[in-house]
């Protein structure tokens, strides 16, 4: 193929790729633009793509006149707390499932996956009754426990495939070199599993950050509401939807995720291919 032909082919390919990106990203872009338009420009016909006047009024109102910051703090606690609990249990659990032999090990691993197959809707009422019985209704703790129930099996399986790729000889070498079981785990296994742990932690954090159903059912006070249910509850009523505020809130909800993604993307893609390639 001649050089100009190759060049125009690449040009066409780029054009195609950017078109796809634009189509997919358009709602996000619209969200961003809507959040900085004055209320008066929202319902213009025909709609204007670019705001005639840029305003950050909606952001100000959201941050100062609503419980948005409380919701944000709750969401952060939920994502952080769930991730911590899930990662600690899943890392140790996955190591045990991979390395130790005990009766029913494989069955246990399958059983764990089986719990993941149950739809959340089936579990939500029993969980609510359980939490109420434990006196945990309307607390962040109840949500952390609930999120752990569905994030843990997934994390366990993801980490198991990472742990499987770590050669057993490494741990044996550490034991012979004088380490205890726990030291070998901390000194040798953890550093090797770190990419897997990071990507699993991200999956878990995102799951917790975006969760809606459990948050809706288990928590109904502003003090414990996360962003997902809080924002809807606050801005969407039967009579009115505060579109500007809703869009501003959505932007602020997305930013932390986008930042995390940008920094840890390479670990995430490794997570997707875990177990696919050895070593």
């Amino acid at each position, binding site marked *: 193929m001649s050089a100009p032909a190759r060049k125009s082919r690449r040009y066409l390919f780029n054009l195609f790729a950017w078109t796809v990106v634009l189509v997919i990203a358009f709602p996000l872009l619209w969200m961003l633009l809507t959040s900085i338009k004055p209320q008066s420009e929202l319902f213009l016909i025909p709609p204007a793509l670019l705001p005639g006047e840029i305003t950050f009024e909606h952001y100000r109102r959201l941050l100062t006149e609503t419980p948005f910051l409380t919701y944000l703090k709750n969401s952060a606690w939920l994502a952080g707390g769930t991730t911590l609990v899930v990662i600690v249990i899943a890392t140790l659990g996955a190591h045990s499932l991979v390395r130790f032999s005990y009766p029913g090990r494989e069955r246990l691993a399958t059983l764990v996956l089986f719990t993941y197959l149950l739809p959340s809707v089936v579990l939500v009422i029993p969980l609510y009754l359980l939490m109420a019985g434990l006196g945990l209704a309307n607390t962040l703790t109840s949500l952390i426990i609930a999120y752990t129930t569905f994030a843990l099996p997934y994390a366990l399986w993801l980490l198991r495939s990472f742990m499987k790729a770590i050669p057993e000889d*490494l741990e044996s*070498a550490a034991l012979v*070199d004088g380490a205890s079981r726990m030291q070998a785990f901390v*000194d040798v296994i953890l550093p090797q599993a770190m990419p897997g742990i990071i990507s699993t932690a991200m999956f878990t954090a995102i799951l917790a950050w975006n969760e809606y159903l459990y948050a809706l059912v288990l928590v109904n006070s502003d003090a414990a509401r996360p962003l997902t249910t809080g924002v809807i509850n606050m801005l969407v009523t039967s009579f009115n939807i505060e579109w500007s505020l809703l869009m501003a809130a959505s932007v602020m909800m997305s930013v932390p995720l986008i930042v995390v993604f940008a920094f840890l993307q390479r670990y995430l893609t490794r997570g997707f291919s875990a177990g696919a390639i050895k070593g």
Partner: protein
Amino acid sequence: MAGIRFDQVSKRFGGVTAVNALSMEIQAGEFVSILGPSGCGKTTLLRMLAGLERPSAGAISIGGAVVNELAPAERNVAMVFQTYALYPHMTVAGNIEYPLKKRRVPKTERAGRVREAARVLELEALLGRKPRELSGGQQQRVALGRALVRDPAAFLLDEPLSNLDAKLRTHMRAELIRLHRRIGRTMVYVTHDQLEAMTMSQRIAVLNEGALQQFASPQDIYARPRNDFVAGFIGTPSMNFLDGRLEGTGADRVFRSGDWSLPIGALRLADEHPDPDRRVRLGVRPEHVRLDAQGEPARVILVEPTGHETILVFDYSGNEIVARMDGEVSLEPDDSVRLSFRVAKLHLFAADDGRRLNLDDS
């Protein structure tokens, strides 16, 4: 420095017996190879010695003390793995230092010992590198360094050379022998490569299906294999076996196979009056087959010149016989020749259990 003793040691994994009532005693400072085909239990034996597997039965002693209940960390043995098992996130220095750290050697002393081990193994220039930046041979030396730095009671080596290319393997073999001579520590070396076992060891333990077949010096194992498994396993090309029966006794004894017979009166047998109908296997090493105008007719099937010698396969009264002859021999497939065996060097094994029938001083 310490001797090692296995006393009726067995290891079962579920219904599979990996090691079966094995007893053997390794002297302090000795270089012993554990040799056998894959799956014979040799690595399991080594892992039990290291404390990575627990014996199902029997006792293992190091330096006179039973270590069955001791964790690997408490046994003061160092192990080199087939895969090297270098810690990928640590530098070469970090890898070599790790066992010292775990044994709480003071930091100032650690640096000196790491340097000393690196000097012995010519790793000084590589101390700051990560394992993935090293060649196979260098990784191998780091694995050795990690064992060496500790000054352990015994070194356990699990096929440490099998991942190296042929040239490097020969080189490292010589290095290991030199290392053993210098530090004089007990070394237990697991391998499936008889050449490694024969060249490096003071004694070889041949294992098959979890059972010890013979534990003796390389010369003994080659010249006086205790059974037909050892005889067939040691030696390249393998020993030839002919099935038949013994007739006559003493100087008139004859080995008969079908309508072919061979007077073997020159062989002295442990049992001078065998059952006249006794079924036996006759073992002939390839180098003990020779061209002989007075011998039995045979036909050449295959000629494999290797330079200094030629391996030949003959059809000999319906049996395939492999012979090792010097490189000058000029034979072509389908040539007709006459062969004889060096009778004094023949081996006789019982057909039922494979045990050696020759008198051991023969």
